[in-house]
C-alpha cells in the first residue's frame, strides 16, 4: 500500500515553505527532537528523531579472517526496513530504500574507517606456506551491526546514523587474554568489557529541496519527503570532514548550495554529537558494574540547578533519569517504568522532584 499525498497537501507544504514556515511548526534549519534509549545490553540503542524510530543492536563474535586481510576484523551491517516501519514496505523484498540506506551507512561507517579493524585482530600468527590451511588458526572479532527501522515518519537515514553512532560508542566487547596458543574470553561480569576503538564519528544530515530547488529544509518529515524534489545527504563528523555524500532527485544543485548545506551540516553535527555525549554520559553512569559508586557519590551531593534537559534511558524495568546542566550530569536516578512513560520534560522533572523528596525523607529516617 503506497502512501499517497493529496494535491492540496502538496501545494500547501510548498506555499508554507515559500513563507519560511513548516507544517510541524519547525524552523527551516531545525531538526526534530532527538532522543536516545539505551537498552540493558551493550550496543543496544534506539534513536528517536521526532516520531521516526530506529533500533541498532551490535553483537560480536570470534571468527576466522578472510585470507586477503588476515589481520583485520570485520564490521558488518545488516539493515532492514520492515512493514513495521510503514505499510509501504513489504517483508522479504529488498527495496530500493533499503539498499540506499545500507549503502549510505556503509559509506559513512565502513569506508571512512570509523572502527579500527586492525584493532579487532586477536591472533594474527604467521601465514603458513601450506595453501590448504591458510589461516585457520587466526582469530579476529566480527562486529555485526543490526539496524531496524521501527517507525518511518520521515528521514530515517539521519536517524539510522544516530542509532549506529550511539550504538558503536555504547558497545563493549568482552575482554580477552592470550597465553601462548590459548585465547581466553572473559565474561562481562569477570572483567570490565572493552569499548571499540573509534577514529571519528560521522552523522548524516539530510537537506531536502522543493519546487525547483529554491526552497530548502533540513530533516524532512514524511509529508515533506513525499513532496520534495531532491535530497542531499551529507555524512560529516565534528572535525568538519565530509565522509559520505548522496544526492538524489532531479534537482540540479549549484556549488554554492552544496557548500551551504555542508556548512549547515557542520553546525548540526556538533549539536547532535553533544546531545549524544550527554546521553552516553548518563548511561555509562548507570551501567551494571562500571560506575555505580560514582552515581552514588554524585547523588549525595545534589545541587539544585534548573534542569536543562532530562534524559530518559530505558533499560527494561526502570528508566534512568538524569538532569543535565550544560555539559555536566547534575544528577542521575532510577524511576519506575510508569513514571518514565511520561516523556515530556516538565512531567519528568516533576517525577524527579518527587523521587528527590522521597529519598530525602528516607535518608532522614535512616539517620
Amino acid at each position, binding site marked *: 500500500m503506497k502512501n*499517497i499525498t*493529496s*494535491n*492540496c497537501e502538496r*501545494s*500547501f507544504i510548498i506555499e508554507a515553505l515559500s513563507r519560511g*514556515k513548516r*507544517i510541524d*511548526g519547525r524552523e527551516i534549519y531545525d531538526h526534530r527532537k532527538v532522543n536516545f534509549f539505551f537498552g540493558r545490553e551493550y550496543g543496544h540503542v534506539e534513536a528517536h528523531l521526532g516520531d521516526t524510530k530506529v533500533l541498532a543492536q551490535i553483537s560480536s563474535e570470534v571468527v576466522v579472517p578472510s585470507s586477503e586481510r588476515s589481520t583485520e576484523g570485520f564490521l558488518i551491517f545488516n539493515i532492514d526496513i520492515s512493514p513495521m516501519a510503514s505499510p509501504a514496505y513489504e517483508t522479504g523484498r529488498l527495496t530500493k530504500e533499503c539498499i540506499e540506506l545500507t549503502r549510505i551507512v556503509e559509506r559513512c561507517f565502513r569506508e571512512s574507517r570509523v572502527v579500527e579493524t586492525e584493532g579487532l585482530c586477536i591472533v594474527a600468527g604467521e601465514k603458513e606456506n601450506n595453501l590448504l590451511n591458510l589461516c585457520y588458526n587466526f582469530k579476529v572479532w566480527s562486529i555485526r551491526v543490526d539496524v531496524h527501522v521501527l517507525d518511518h515518519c520521515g528521514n530515517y537515514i539521519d536517524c539510522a546514523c544516530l542509532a549506529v553512532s550511539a550504538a558503536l560508542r555504547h558497545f563493549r566487547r568482552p575482554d580477552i587474554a592470550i597465553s601462548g596458543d590459548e585465547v581466553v574470553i572473559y565474561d562481562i561480569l569477570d572483567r570490565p568489557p572493552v569499548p571499540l576503538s573509534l577514529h571519528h564519528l560521522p552523522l548524516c544530515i539530510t537537506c531536502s529541496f522543493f519546487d525547483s530547488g529554491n526552497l530548502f529544509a533540513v530533516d524532512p518529515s514524511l509529508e515533506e519527503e513525499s513532496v520534495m524534489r531532491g535530497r542531499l545527504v551529507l555524512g560529516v563528523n565534528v572535525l568538519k570532514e565530509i565522509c559520505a555524500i548522496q544526492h538524489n532527485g532531479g534537482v540540479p544543485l549549484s556549488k554554492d548550495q552544496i557548500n551551504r548545506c555542508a556548512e549547515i551540516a557542520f553546525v548540526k553535527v556538533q549539536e547532535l554529537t553533544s546531545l549524544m555525549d550527554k546521553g552516553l554520559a548518563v548511561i555509562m553512569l548507570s551501567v551494571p558494574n562500571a560506575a555505580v559508586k560514582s552515581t552514588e557519590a554524585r547523588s549525595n551531593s545534589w545541587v539544585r540547578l534548573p534542569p536543562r534537559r532530562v534524559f530518559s534511558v530505558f533499560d527494561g524495568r526502570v528508566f534512568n533519569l538524569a538532569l543535565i546542566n550544560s555539559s555536566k550530569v547534575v544528577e542521575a536516578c532510577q524511576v519506575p517504568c510508569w513514571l518514565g512513560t511520561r516523556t515530556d520534560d516538565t512531567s519528568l522533572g516533576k517525577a524527579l522532584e518527587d523521587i528527590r523528596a522521597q529519598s530525602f525523607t528516607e535518608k532522614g529516617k535512616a539517620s
Partner: protein
Amino acid sequence: MVEDVNENTTVFPGEVIKDVKAVKGVTILGPGLKRNEDPPNTLRITRAGKLQFKPPNIYWVSHNHKRYIPKRGDLVVGIIVKKAGDSLRIDIGSGEYASLSMLAFEGATKKQKPDVQVGDVIYGKLLNAHREMEPELVCVDSYFKAGKMGPLSNDGFVFTVSLGLVHRLLDPENPILTALGKVFPYEIAVGMNGKVWVNGRNTKEVLTVLRCLETAELHDDKVIVELCRQSK
C-alpha cells in the same frame, strides 16, 4: 469486575460488567463491548477506555485509536489514489482502499462524470463496510443529493489526527471549533477516519488550526478555548 458504571470508570479488556440495565430485554451496545454468555446478563470489555452509560440502556467504551476501522454510515475524508474506469479508489486510512463509483456523485451520469483527479480530497459516506469486503463510499444521500459531500477544494490542507480527537471534535457541545471560529473564519471537514481537511484565508491561519488541533490531542478543551480567548 466493574460495579458502578454511571461514572467515567476506566476499564480494560477482559473486565466484566454485572447488572446490565435493559429495557424490555434490550440493551444497546456501542464499541468496545461484547455480550457475555456465561454468566448471563453480563458484558465483557474488549477495549481499554472509559465506560459510558446513557440511561436507560445504552453502553459504550470511549477510547482513543490511531488506526481506523471502517463502519457503515461513517462520514469520512479520503484521498483519490487511482482512477480505474468508472470507479475510484480512495485512501481512507483503513487497511484497504475504499471504492467510490463515478456515478455516486450528485448529477453524475454515464456521459457526464465529475471532474476529479488522482490526489483530490473527497468527503463521502461509507455505504458498505464489512470485515471481509472492500469498503464502499458514496457522495450522495438516499435522495441522490450531495449535501455537504463531494470533492473538497484543492486549497487547504489535509492531515491526520487520532480517532479520540475526532470523536471530541464531532461532539456538538465541544467548544474547540467554535472558539477557533470566533478568532478567524475557516472551513473544516472532520472525517470519522481521523483525516481532517482545513481551509482558511491564508497559510498562517490554516497552520494555526493545525497547531490548535495538535495541542488538543494532549490537552483539555479548556486550554484551546483559553488560547483563543487570549489571541482575540
